């Protein structure tokens, strides 16, 4: 595979997120999602369906401007270089992707990412970006509360293992409840992609099997 140099867009998208998160007033009024003195221009949509549509549209805007695709939509090689593979939109790290061990750290170069930008290795081990689609292998079983608490606490489903780098939850935890609701509502509407993302791998030095020794890969038992 051809070596490609990517000047990552996360920094810019992170700034965009910050702007959105810190100055939501205009957008919130546009979508009619904040209370206060109503005017004809910012009045809430009349019907529940219209309100839901506005919520979903706002969620799409937040997802599109917050860098979610950068890691959760696998990259593919396009004519102009790596580009998001929108046929697998927000479906996370492809479960069938063969990955050799991540390259060893050299001096201060301690983080490595896959060509899809969905697998990231560093001192924390190897993390794989989550499937955010409403499939049962993705966020299907998650409630809004699970989703919001996961980002707010930095823990899986709000109570489990730590969410690992490079997920910038310390930024995203600043979303308001309304913004979480909008993002969640939008993510329920996108195409479901069946893709069971691997669990994170611990750092290489840590034992990974009950006996302490790494366990050899095994064929699926069933299914």
């Amino acid at each position, binding site marked *: 595979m051809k070596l490609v140099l990517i000047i990552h867009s996360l920094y810019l998208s992170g700034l965009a997120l910050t702007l959105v998160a810190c100055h939501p007033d205009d957008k919130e009024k546009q979508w009619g999602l904040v209370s206060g003195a109503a005017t004809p221009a910012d009045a809430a949509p009349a019907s529940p369906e219209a309100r839901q549509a506005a919520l979903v549209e706002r969620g799409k805007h937040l997802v599109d401007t917050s860098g979610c695709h950068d890691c959760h939509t696998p990259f593919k090689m396009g004519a102009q270089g790596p580009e998001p593979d929108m046929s697998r939109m927000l479906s996370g790290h492809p479960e069938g992707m063969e990955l050799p061990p991540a390259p060893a750290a050299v001096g201060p170069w301690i983080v490595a*990412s896959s060509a899809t930008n969905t697998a990231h290795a560093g001192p924390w081990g190897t993390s794989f970006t989550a499937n955010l689609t409403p499939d049962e292998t993705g966020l299907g079983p998650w409630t809004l509360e699970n989703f919001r608490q996961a980002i707010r606490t930095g823990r899986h489903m709000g109570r489990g293992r730590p969410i690992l780098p490079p997920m910038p939850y310390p930024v995203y935890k600043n979303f308001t409840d309304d913004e979480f609701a909008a993002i969640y509502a939008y993510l329920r509407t996108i195409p479901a992609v069946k893709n069971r993302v691997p669990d994170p791998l611990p750092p290489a030095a840590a034992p990974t099997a009950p006996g302490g020794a790494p*366990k050899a890969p095994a064929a699926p038992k069933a299914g």
Partner: protein
Amino acid sequence: MLGTMDGPTRRDDPAPAADPPWISLVLALPLVFLGAFGLACTAVEGRALLLGDDSGEAPPPPVAAVSAAAADPTVVAASSAPAPLPDLLSQTGLYAARGAAGAPGSGAAAGAQELHPDVFQFVPQYPLWTDGATKRRYVRLPPGTSIDASKPDAWVFPVGTRFWKDFAFPDEGGAHAGSSAPRSGAPRKVETRLIERLADGSWRFASYVWDADGREARLVPEGGLPNAAPIGETGRLHDIPSRGDCLACHEGAGARAPILGFTALQLSPDRDALAPHAEVKAADAIDLEGLVRRGLLEGYVGPARPGIVAESPEARASLGYLHGNCSGCHNRGGPLADLGLDFEQTGRPGDAERVLSSVVGVESRFRLPGEQHSVRVSAGEPLESVLRFRIGTRNIVQQMPPLGSKVVDQEATELVASWIESIVNEAPTSAEKETP
């Protein structure tokens, strides 16, 4: 991509060549990435994530002012602005009042104080494992109030109820305690946690870290205090949790109050002799019978001596351990209820079967290393069971519980493994059911 954390790239550290598919290189990591990275590195080093939300705690109202609202937790007192958390443990109501010479901050020792007369000790029969910490637990109800137990599995505590729990580890001497004292090996109090019910019905959580001389304990910042004290001779250090981490366990129980060790089953006079790390109940510690006798428990209609109904003493102890250590999150009514993983025990018949049906042969979203499919409990096969694996590791991305412990509970792991071995498989696994 390959990234670097410390300062500008040095000329003598060229970026390494890419090895497909690890090919993308990042010249400058975004700030947001570094923020998340720093937190996770902290976690990998075995320190608690500092996730506290500086939203401002609602301090407690004076006990006398909240008694009227105690009967109905949904009632919000007219003046519900609570006072800030006290700076010192000796100011929280755990200890008997002192004279002027012993006023807080005057040099009198909280550690030498007698408990307040309204404070009761209690000892749950299935204690939470905290890396072998020695614990003492206390409860204090506002005068004239009682616990509403008309819902047997969701006791309602009066506003103003306070719980405390001491955590002590063997004294490793001055190296970590900030003094020149030699190592004694005797338990030394490290922290005392406080949970308090506020006027609006919510609960607040705090911890107090003990001074090295054991005379006073001081309020820990909302972000917690990582590496506060050595965990015996394990080489690991105990973290005092952030308040966010407190909520991760204590607010996962749905309708149950977030006091995980204070239920009819946990306080039953019928103590499980095989419970891992069972503690001797002090003579003056209150139990279920004592609560009823003293009029502190209203409306309780359950058995006087509830106990887990199981096929064997080993099964009873295992189910009890899982109840005490896992059911705070894994239950039927909390935020994770949709997982269908339920370790809750009530002391009524049928509980064991309900728990077994939620784990035996049920496919896990977590997969054992190298496996494409794993089940929560594989009957008769502890090493093929995710439950056994996750309670038997302290790798931070795999361990259960996911926080609050850095040392495997070997006794309990062996007990649970033995119990899994004894389970007879009577039904095909869910994975097998899916196979055409």
